[in-house]
């Protein structure tokens, strides 16, 4: 027994070890697996291959999977529930994606005991929201049907990746690794390291599927932190045509059905977002990673309701600064810095506060 006691406690210790290993398996494999999983490619070759694949007439191959977004921007905690738009700026969110072809798509946003769905099938699209029990039928403008880019897909890795590719070489050092896996698939990782020392971005990593060249993950690393400040990518993916049922939708009985035209929907959504009613004259200062957006900002009329609350709570934690141009308040997160000057300008950029204060002086 005296020795037996040690052996006994060895069992839970072993259990902890096994469970710990299983939980940590993902990161550990990624870190330890330094062996190449794909043949080497130069950055330019990879970009070319990816661009070619993206331009293919039939678009990316059919697939389904789970997309997860995690953001730890280091923002102050914002008021509002998990459903509020502010919540998207922090924490993890998950979406399920089924992609059949360029005009057959389903995106599901699962919530606790609820689900939002966007189902696009040819010229018809449905929005389903189980928490309000409403189905919205959206008519797609005919003829314009080619690259239908409904809003949620703006956030898929494809779009985010393409945007990055264009920006890549001018302001960044680009390198390629071939040792990583995303959602179990071997990927090339395009690593962009900004040349501008004033930016808060340490590097951006774009993972591209080694076989299909579909972008699978984007990670943005801030300076001074090992974990990505922002990450959007597949955690599960299968390059197989999804079941057809995913792209058909019949409104259930007893459900409110609304109909909307895509043309009428857009301005409608805009007015919903309040402060974007008219495009403000945005100026930019600097270029590349150091680009700073300068826009007029009237605090009093900027936001109402919840937006106002968010704004107030953000400004409450802001640091007062001043310069030759006047004074203002500065809010810093891991990736973005914003300066609201007392003379009604808002400066935003992925740069250090010093650079922002300096930029405030240039009218």
């Amino acid at each position: 027994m005296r020795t037996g006691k040690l052996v006994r406690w060895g069992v839970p210790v072993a259990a902890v070890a096994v469970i710990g290993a299983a939980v940590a398996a993902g990161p550990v494999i990624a870190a330890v697996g330094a062996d190449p999983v794909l043949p080497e490619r130069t950055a330019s070759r990879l970009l070319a291959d990816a661009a070619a694949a993206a331009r293919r007439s039939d678009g990316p191959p059919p697939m389904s999977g789970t997309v997860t977004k995690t953001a730890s921007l280091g923002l102050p905690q914002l008021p509002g529930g998990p459903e509020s738009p502010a919540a998207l700026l922090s924490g993890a969110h998950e979406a399920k994606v089924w992609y059949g072809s360029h005009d057959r798509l389903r995106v599901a946003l699962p919530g606790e005991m609820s689900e939002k769905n966007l189902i696009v099938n040819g010229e018809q699209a449905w929005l389903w929201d189980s928490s309000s029990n409403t189905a919205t039928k959206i008519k797609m403008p005919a003829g314009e049907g080619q690259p239908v880019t409904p809003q949620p897909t703006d956030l898929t890795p494809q779009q985010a990746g393409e945007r990055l590719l264009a920006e890549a070489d001018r302001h960044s050092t680009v390198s390629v690794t071939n040792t990583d896996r995303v959602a179990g698939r071997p990927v090339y990782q395009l690593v962009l390291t900004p040349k501008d020392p004033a930016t808060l971005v340490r590097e951006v990593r774009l993972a591209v599927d080694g076989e299909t060249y579909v972008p699978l993950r984007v990670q943005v690393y801030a300076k001074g932190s090992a974990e990505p400040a922002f990450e959007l990518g597949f955690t599960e993916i299968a390059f197989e045509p999804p079941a057809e049922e995913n792209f058909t939708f019949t409104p259930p009985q007893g459900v409110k059905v609304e109909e909307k035209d895509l043309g009428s929907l857009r301005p409608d959504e805009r007015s919903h977002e309040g402060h974007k009613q008219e495009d403000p004259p945005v100026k930019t200062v600097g270029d590349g990673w150091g680009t700073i957006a300068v826009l007029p900002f009237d605090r009093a009329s900027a936001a109402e309701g919840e937006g106002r609350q968010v704004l107030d709570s953000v400004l409450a934690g802001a640091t007062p600064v001043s310069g030759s141009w006047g004074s203002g308040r500065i809010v810093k997160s891991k990736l973005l810095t914003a300066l609201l000057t007392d003379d009604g300008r808002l400066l935003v950029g992925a740069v250090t506060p010093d650079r922002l204060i300096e930029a405030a002086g240039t009218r």
Partner: protein
Amino acid sequence: MTVGHDAGAPSGAPAAIRTRGLTKVFKGGQVAVDALDLDVPRGSVFGFLGPNGSGKTTTIRMLLGLVTPTAGDHALLDRPLAEALPSVGAVVEGPAFYPYLSGEANLLRYDAANPASSARDARSRVGQALERVGLSAAAGKRYRAYSLGMRQRLAIAAALLRPRELLVLDEPTNGLDPQGTREVRALVREIARDGTTVFVSSHLLAEVEQMCTHAAVMSHGRLVAQGTISSLHGGRPALLRVETPRAAEAARILDGLGLAEVTAAGSHVTAELGGHAPEEINAALVRQGVPVRGLAVVRPSLEEVFVGLTGEGFDVDG
């Protein structure tokens, strides 16, 4: 691995309980039991004596596998503990049952816990055990409504659910009224008559003296004596005490008979009895014309023996 090796190989006479160097040190360093070498022969009624707090209960808990010894070996019935336990009945530190169940349901519960008991004849087994302790009439009554004596008897019934080779009873008469005490003692004697070894702990000397063939004495976690009751007496000789008006004459006669340590004082004479029969001494005195008013053999009580051993007093009532 404390039971182990020599447990299956009996050395000498078959032992019901054997411990070697059995020690328990509780957290905080309190030594409850200190290197105990206990030998309980089969077929004995073994009294385990000691004042409260002398380590009796901790020893019993170690014997039954409830408490892990810090050091030492022990075996029951010359078998490893797991194999021996189904043949051992035990009452440890008073009865404990489910108050909301009847006496019968309680016994069925404990019977079900024994992997060696079959469900088939459980009811008849329980019925017999209840009958043996005289609780048949109260079988359907909730335990909550039992008197203290009934509870104690139910605990003994639980220990008697199966034919046992060894019965371990920890203070079986604790808290009982004289009637209950008599009943329990009678029961123990009856069980012992059937050949079951009974190991009974008690802080009552008289109880052990009345019931037991063997005894061991614990004091401050140590075993200070063990053996048959008579061998424990053996240390002190029995005295003969004769009451007579002619003490000097009587003393001479006793001396002549070969008794040792003859002393005359006033109207009585005492001497060590030795191997003599008291009736013959009486006859010899009468033959020689010494009027005998009274004659008694005085044995030193166990109490005197044990007070000498432990330096502590015992309860002598009950």
